[in-house]
C-alpha cells in the first residue's frame, strides 16, 4: 500500500491546532473568563444576558430603596412630631375646658393652640429634597395653607389624591406616600386642621362655649388617632421595603454566584488542559524532528 509522503504537513497542521488551543486556554487563564465569544457556549451566553439583567435590576432596586427609605423615614418622624404636638394641644384644650381658667388664660391657651396649628401646618408642609411629601402628586407646591377670612379659619389642601408606588423586581408594589388630605383634613371628625381651627376660634374671645369646645377637643382626639392610623401605612411601607431590599440583596448574591459560575474560567481545569496541550505539542515536535531527519530517506542509503 502506498502512503502519503507528505505526512509531515499533516503533523504540522496538528501542531498548529495544539498551539491555537493553547492560545485560547491562555486567554481564558489571563482574563479569568471562560466564554470570550458567543459560539463557545451559545446557551450560556444567552443565559448570561438574562442573569446580568436580573442582577442589574436588583442593584438598581437597592439604590432606589435607599432613596425612598429616607423619604419614608422623614414622613414617619414628621407624623410622630405631629402626634406629639396634637397630644399637647389636647391637654391644653382639656385644661381650658374644665372651667377654672379666666379669660386671659383661655386666650393664652388659644394662642398656644394657634401656635401648634402653625407648627402642625409646617410639619404637613415638610419637604424632602425639595419635594413636599404630603402633597400627593403636586410635590412642587406646599400642600397646606390657612385662610383667616372665615371664623373658624380654614386650612386648605392644595395637593391631590395621588399615591406613588415603587415596584420591586418581582412586581410587588410598595406605597411611597399618603396624600396630606387623607392625614390632616379627612372628612368630618377626622380633620386635624378642622379641629384645631375650631379650637382656636373657640378660645379666641376668652369666653368659652364649653359644650362646643369639648366637642371640638374630642374631634381633635379622633383626628389624632386617625393620623396615627395613617402613620401605620408609612411604617408598613418601611417594613415592606426593608424586607424587599433584603430579599433582593440575597437574590442578587445568588445570581452573582450563578453568573460567576457560568462565565468564570475554572483555573484548575484550564491549567490541566493547558498542560495536556503542551505535552501534546512537545510530543508532536519530537515526532516531526524524528521523521524529518535526512537519514530517513532511502536516498541517503544509496551509494
Amino acid at each position, binding site marked *: 500500500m*502506498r*502512503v*502519503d*509522503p*507528505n*505526512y509531515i504537513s*499533516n503533523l504540522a497542521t496538528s501542531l498548529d491546532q495544539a498551539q491555537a488551543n493553547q492560545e485560547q486556554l491562555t486567554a481564558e487563564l489571563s*482574563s479569568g*473568563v471562560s*466564554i*470570550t*465569544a*458567543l*459560539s*463557545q*457556549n*451559545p*446557551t*450560556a*451566553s*444567552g443565559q*448570561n*444576558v*438574562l442573569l*446580568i*439583567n436580573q*442582577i*442589574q*435590576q436588583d*442593584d*438598581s*432596586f437597592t439604590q*432606589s430603596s435607599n*432613596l425612598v427609605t429616607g423619604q419614608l423615614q422623614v414622613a414617619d418622624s414628621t407624623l410622630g412630631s405631629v402626634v406629639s404636638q396634637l397630644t399637647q394641644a389636647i391637654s391644653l384644650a382639656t385644661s381650658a375646658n374644665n372651667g377654672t381658667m379666666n379669660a386671659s388664660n383661655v386666650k393664652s391657651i388659644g394662642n398656644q393652640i394657634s401656635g401648634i396649628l402653625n407648627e402642625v401646618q409646617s410639619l404637613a408642609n415638610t419637604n424632602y*429634597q*425639595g*419635594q413636599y411629601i404630603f*402633597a400627593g*402628586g*403636586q*410635590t*412642587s407646591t406646599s400642600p397646606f395653607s390657612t385662610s383667616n377670612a372665615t371664623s373658624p379659619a380654614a386650612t386648605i389642601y392644595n*395637593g*391631590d389624591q*395621588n399615591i*406613588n*408606588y*415603587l*415596584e420591586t423586581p418581582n*412586581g410587588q408594589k410598595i406605597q*411611597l406616600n399618603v396624600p396630606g388630605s387623607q392625614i390632616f383634613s379627612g372628612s368630618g371628625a377626622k380633620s386635624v386642621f378642622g379641629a384645631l381651627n375650631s379650637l382656636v376660634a373657640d378660645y379666641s374671645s376668652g369666653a368659652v362655649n364649653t359644650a362646643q369646645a369639648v366637642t371640638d377637643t374630642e374631634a381633635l382626639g379622633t383626628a389624632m388617632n386617625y393620623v396615627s392610623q395613617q402613620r401605620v401605612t408609612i411604617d408598613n411601607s418601611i417594613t415592606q421595603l426593608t424586607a424587599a431590599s433584603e430579599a433582593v440583596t440575597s437574590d442578587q448574591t445568588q445570581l*452573582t454566584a450563578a*453568573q460567576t459560575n457560568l*462565565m*468564570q474560567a475554572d483555573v484548575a481545569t484550564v491549567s490541566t488542559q493547558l498542560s495536556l496541550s503542551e505535552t501534546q505539542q512537545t510530543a508532536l515536535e519530537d515526532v516531526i524532528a524524528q521523521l524529518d531527519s535526512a537519514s530517513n*530517506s*532511502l*536516498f541517503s*542509503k*544509496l551509494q
Partner: protein
Amino acid sequence: MGTISSAFSLMSGALNADQSALSIVANNVASANTPGYTAETPNWQENAPIQINGVSYGSGVTQTGATSLRDRVLEERLDQQRQLASASGARLTALNSVQALFTPDSGSASAKAGDIGSDMTSFFSSFASLEANPTNNALRQQVLSSASTLAGDVSNAAASLNGQRAALNQDASGITSQVNSLTGAIAQLNQQIQSTSPSADAGTLEDQRQQDLSQLSKLIGINQITTENNGLSITTTSGQLLVSEGSSFQLTTGSAGGVTHFYVGTTDVTSQLASGGGELGGYLTARDQDIPSVMNSLDQLAFSVSTQVNTLNDSGTDLDGVSGTVANPLYIFSQPTAVAGSAANMSVAMTDPNQIAAAGLGQGAGDNSNAVAMASLASQLIANGQTPTNYYSNLVSTLGATVSSVQTENTAQNASVTQLQTQNDALSSVNLNDEASSMETLERSYQAASQVFTMLDRIMTSVLNLGVQTAVS
C-alpha cells in the same frame, strides 16, 4: 534463429528504455515539491516476438513514455469537498466578526459600554429609579444618558454590521475576476489537451488543469463533466455553464438592491452561488442571510423599544405639566417609521430631561405612575412576543449557535478535505523512497544491460577473428 546482431539491438533497446525510465524518475524527483505535480510512472512495453523457423524469440523492451498516477474520481471528490470547506470557512470568518460585536459581558453589577443587553437593563432601570423620586433632575438625566448609551450601542452595532456586509460584498465581487481568469485558462487547456492527447492522460497539461480546478473549487461551487477526447465542461452547482470544452463563459457582476449580483450571460445566479459552495458561496451566505438576520433582530428590538417607550412617554405628563400632542409629541427616541433601519437610525431625540413624562396624564409632577409603566416595559412582551431582554438573549444565543454550528461544520469538512488529500497524495504525489528504489532497480538493470553488451562485444570479436587471436581485439 536469433543472431548476435539481434542480441545487440535487443540490448541497445534495453539501454534506451532504461535511460528513458531513469529520466522519468529524475523528473519525478525534480518535481517532488511542485504544487499540482502528479507522479509519473514509466510504461514498459514488450516488443513483438520474432518467429524464425517456427521458433519464437523475444525482441526486448520499449519504453513508451510515462503515465501520470491519477485518480479522477478522487480528485473530483477532493474538489467537491474543498468547495464545501472553503464556503464554510469564509462564512465562519464573516460570522466571527459578527459575533465579536456581541461579546458576552463578564461583569455583573455595572453596565458596560458596548453591551446592548446591559444597556437595555440600565435604561429600563433608570425609569425604576425615577419611580423613587420622579422630580429629581439627576435621575431624569440618568434616563436620558442611559437612553443615549443604548441608542449609541445599538446604532454602532448596526453600522458595524452594515460595514461588514459592505466588506463581504467587496470580497465577493473581487472573486469574479479570479474565477473568469481560471475558467479562461481551463478552456485553453481543454483545447490543448483535446488536440495533443485525446485518448490518453495528458500529463503536465492535465496537472495544470487539475491545479486550476482546485483553485476554482476554492472560489465557487462547480460541477465537472468529462466530455469526449479528454475535454471537460464546468457548470456552477446549479447548472449554469462556465466552461464548455474550449470556450468559457464570463461571470459578470451588476448592482441590484444595494449589493452586487452575479450573472452568467443574463441569468442572475446570485442565490444559486450562495448555496453552491466555495468562498463566494460563504461570502454570499453571510452577506445575504446571516448578517441580514442579525440586523433584522436588532431592527426589531430597536423599533419595539423606541416606539413603545415613545408612546408611553407621549401619553404622560412631563415635569412642566406638559403632555404630548400630535404636533409636539414627547418622544425620547427619534420615532422610527419602519422596522427596517430602526437599529441604524436609533438615537435620542430628547434633550431636556424635564420632558420625561414620569407622571400619568393630568397628574402632578410628583406622580410616578408613568415612570412605573415605562419601567415595567422591561418585563412586558413588547419585542415580537418576548420581553426586550429575552429577545436580546435569544438573539445572542441564536447567533452563537449559528457560529458554533458553522464552526463544527467547517472542522468536519476540513478533516474530510485532509483525509481526501491524504488519499490523493498517497496515490499521486512523489514518494522519494519509491523513486530511490526505482532508481536503484533501473541502475542495476542498466548495468546488467551494459555487461551483456560488453559480453556480446567479446563474442562478436571471437566471431570476427574466427580463432585468430590478434586480428581484431
